């Protein structure tokens, strides 16, 4: 399908736009400073100074505004449409979060200011910690980790520190096969070997599986990393028994909180035996994904592990302060106090919707997912066809006979105005299509998505070629990823 482009490659509102360097006009400028008030410096050895300037573009403000405005229009976004990405919780990002996070009383804070001048910020952080503790059923929280994987790192480091304090950090971590790739990667960088555990035929982790691993490996096992609910959208109902087995063997249980949006006010990870977990504020607590960050991955622990949290910790009182004297702490996991701007957004969301609003979000997220499960189950195979939590995993089994695969279904959705679901994950379901609607989407939006999926299922039978070439009408069609990796072009080739 070719399209009639204008002479500059533009079609209607879809503006072509070169790389920013190609817009550069020598001598143009887009910034201004006051006239110099201080004499130019005379102390530096000219031989140590840069002779050739970096090839940054020379642009006016309008050039820059237009460039990035056009780029922005090539992005799909939650603001533009439904994003059914399983395990990513692409809920709406309220704008009041942005306004509060943009207040100069927050953005203007230097992290090295005396704490007496940071009381509002510390109060906000303490309130957020307390709210996350209540939601997770755990006791103490660090807000320092910058993202989910960073929280995982922090949590496993805490497990390692706690076991080391008991005398032996141990050497292995149990990870279910359905885990997100960050779980084994995290355990590995914390110095642990990974032991993969299979799920039962019902998609759940079973106490016998864990008990067998513990029996075989004994005190080599530092703990278990488990996503709850799991990446199949199923509630891990055996966790109380499983956690007890791990604890009895001297291990600790790490909870991956990627799917916390199913649980708020419903059940608490701490109550079923999880010892440490991270929380993705950019999933459950409505802070924007930003095209790949910044997120925030606070970690909650039970009381016995609080001494190992990164330092500093916030000390409560009429005057809040920072306690750096934490001899058992794993140390800092990044500079300063965390992605503070993200914390402000999450705090705003929690305060605005309140405890009842959080619980309602989880209830509606679960209802929406089950609605999609039933509706989509007519045209697609549902991997585990029984009530799910906040997400449902489909497969391409019914379409594969026509030569159409998960990737083709995903790409065709783009033509129909939707971001594709998470695909080929979890790995335990071949050709998975993982759909998470969140509570943000209306019934009309869900029905629209169902109609699009049903159309694709029909097309798979009647015109499979249409799907194999999809997307057809997006800003770019399928990109050659093999060529990109074979001879990588990772920077702009100047002079090309």
């Amino acid at each position, binding site marked *: 399908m070719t399209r009639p482009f204008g002479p500059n490659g533009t079609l209607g509102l879809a503006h072509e736009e070169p790389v920013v360097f190609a817009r550069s006009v020598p001598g143009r400028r887009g910034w201004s400073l006051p006239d110099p008030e201080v004499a130019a410096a005379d102390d530096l050895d000219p031989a140590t100074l840069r002779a050739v300037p970096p090839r940054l573009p020379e642009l006016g403000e309008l050039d820059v505004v237009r460039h990035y405005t056009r780029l922005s229009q090539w992005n799909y976004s939650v603001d533009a449409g439904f994003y059914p990405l399983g395990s990513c919780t692409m809920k709406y990002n309220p704008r009041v979060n942005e306004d509060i996070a943009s207040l100069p009383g927050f953005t*203007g804070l230097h992290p090295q200011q005396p704490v007496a001048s940071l009381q509002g910020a510390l109060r906000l952080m303490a309130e957020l910690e307390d709210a996350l503790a209540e939601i997770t059923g755990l006791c103490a929280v660090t807000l320092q980790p910058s993202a989910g994987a960073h929280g995982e790192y922090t949590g496993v480091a805490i497990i390692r520190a706690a076991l080391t304090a008991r005398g032996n950090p141990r050497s292995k971590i149990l990870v279910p096969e359905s885990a997100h*790739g960050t779980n084994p990667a995290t355990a590995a960088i914390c110095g642990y070997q990974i032991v993969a555990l299979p799920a039962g035929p019902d998609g759940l982790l079973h106490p016998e599986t864990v008990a067998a691993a513990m029996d075989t490996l004994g005190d080599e096992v530092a703990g278990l990393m488990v996503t709850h609910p799991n990446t199949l959208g199923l509630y891990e109902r055996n966790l109380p028994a499983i956690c007890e087995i791990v604890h009895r063997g001297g291990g600790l249980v790490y909870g991956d909180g990627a799917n916390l949006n199913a649980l*708020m006010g*419903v059940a608490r990870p701490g109550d079923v035996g999880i010892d440490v977990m991270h929380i993705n504020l950019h999933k459950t607590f409505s802070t924007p*994904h930003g095209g790949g960050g*910044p997120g925030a991955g606070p970690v909650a622990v039970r009381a016995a592990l609080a001494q190992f949290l990164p330092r500093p910790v916030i000390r409560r009182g009429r005057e809040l302060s920072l306690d750096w004297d934490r001899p058992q702490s794993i140390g800092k996991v990044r500079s300063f106090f965390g992605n503070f701007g993200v914390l402000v957004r999450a705090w705003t969301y929690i305060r605005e919707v309140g405890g009842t609003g959080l619980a309602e979000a989880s209830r509606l997220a679960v209802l929406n997912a089950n609605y999609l499960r039933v509706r989509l189950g007519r045209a697609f195979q549902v991997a585990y066809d029984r009530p799910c939590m906040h997400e449902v995993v489909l497969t391409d089994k019914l379409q594969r006979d026509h030569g159409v695969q998960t990737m083709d279904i995903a790409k065709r959705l783009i033509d129909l105005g939707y971001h594709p679901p998470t695909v080929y994950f979890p790995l335990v379901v071949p050709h998975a299509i993982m759909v998470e609607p969140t509570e943000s989407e209306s019934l009309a939006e869900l029905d629209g998505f169902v109609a699009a999926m049903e159309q694709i299922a029909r097309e798979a039978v009647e015109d499979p070629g249409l799907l194999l070439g999809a997307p057809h009408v997006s800003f770019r069609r399928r990109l050659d990823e093999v060529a990109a990796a074979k001879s990588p072009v990772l920077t702009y080739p100047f002079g090309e």
Partner: protein
Amino acid sequence: MPERCSKYIPATCGEVRHMLEVVGYPGIDALLADLVPAEQRLGRPLALPGPMSEPEVMALGAALAGANRPAAAGACFLGAGAYRHHIPAAIHHLAGRGEFLTAYTPYQPEISQGTLQGIFEFQTMVTELFGMDVANASVYDGATALAEALFMAHRVGRGKRSRAVLAGAIHPEHLEVCCTYGLARIVALDSLAPGADGRVSLTDLDAKLGPDVCCVAVQSPNFLGLIEDLPAIAARVHAAGALLVVSVSDPHACALFQPPGELGADIVIAEGQPLGLPLSMGGPYLGLFATRNDLVRQMPGRLVGRTTDADGRTGFVLTLATREQHIRREKATSNICTNQGLNALQAAMYMSIVGPAGLREVAERSHAHALHLKRAVAALPGFGVPHAGPFFHEFVVTTPVPASEIVQGLLPVGVFAGLPLSRYFPERTHELLVCATEANSRAELDELVRLLGGFSPRAGGAA
């Protein structure tokens, strides 16, 4: 039937009823009862405050913001890892566009070309600034960038080289993060304190080098503001067969001084916050990470590459993903997934607006302001500036009274005088780390000198 509590949930009672009918349950509680065993249900409301209207939450947020005294609104001489520079107005508006803000990681390139091209441009700008071949799409911040660099150097050393030397005045928080990351003892850390002149002592460095060293990391401008002798350090490090990792305190320095890539660095990392990101109490910031072409497959983090689409048009994709956790799982180069995408884009916007001449001018002004201040403070009775080496925009001041007293004393007049070094080195009670940038006016500089003079010992009194 649930009552609607939040304006962010669009479902009406009627729609909820309809969905429940389709799903086959009389209510959401009945559905949840089938999913979650009764004894695992919370069974009570969350003990959190109730919902608020938008005006109420805005008032509450404003009250908390108002309970702070933002340094950026006063005379700020704080640096030490976070730097106040002017941020052009357009950046906040562009970075706040919902199409950037509310997009997911660009795993579907056909509908993510905006983020992808923006990050490709960012990668190019970072390599230009540092004089390196290739840069990634960012890591969390400067501290984690340093830790990742040590891991990378260890991988390049293939396990035969297990020791990383952290030389000279590296930001203490970055050192601490490396120690935390070294918890599993994958990399043995060996730190080398700066010499009396505040810089790496070359003879001490020689003594630390050996065939087991995978890399030497130095910071320049270092934590005390000084420029290290990178050519001399690079020669020694390379002679020992190790990699040189250079950490940059403020990337503007690379527009003024010879960039690390031209001086022998193998990996260059930096805190990217000074490039157009607000101070924001320490985050979200931006870890910059660059290296040489031949080391790219050992580099952590996401990378965007250029390619073509099915119609032959130029486009961009995430590439070399076989280094990453979602493909390699426990064999990945890092566990990093979500990074600082929007902050990287924001830094690219900043560099686009400020351009090469602007970046140089910001750096020159910052240095000139700091030099003016340093000379004036050096002339104050009782004060001293112990380091004579070349510096960028930060310097140490020795003080006649404990530095923390000066900082506390000037806080009420809205002057943030600097960082007492006792914050990180308890015995260094009478040293203040002072930073000036282009954002400090002449009046602010002179006012600080006047206020510091108030702490000078009185003429004829005990000095």
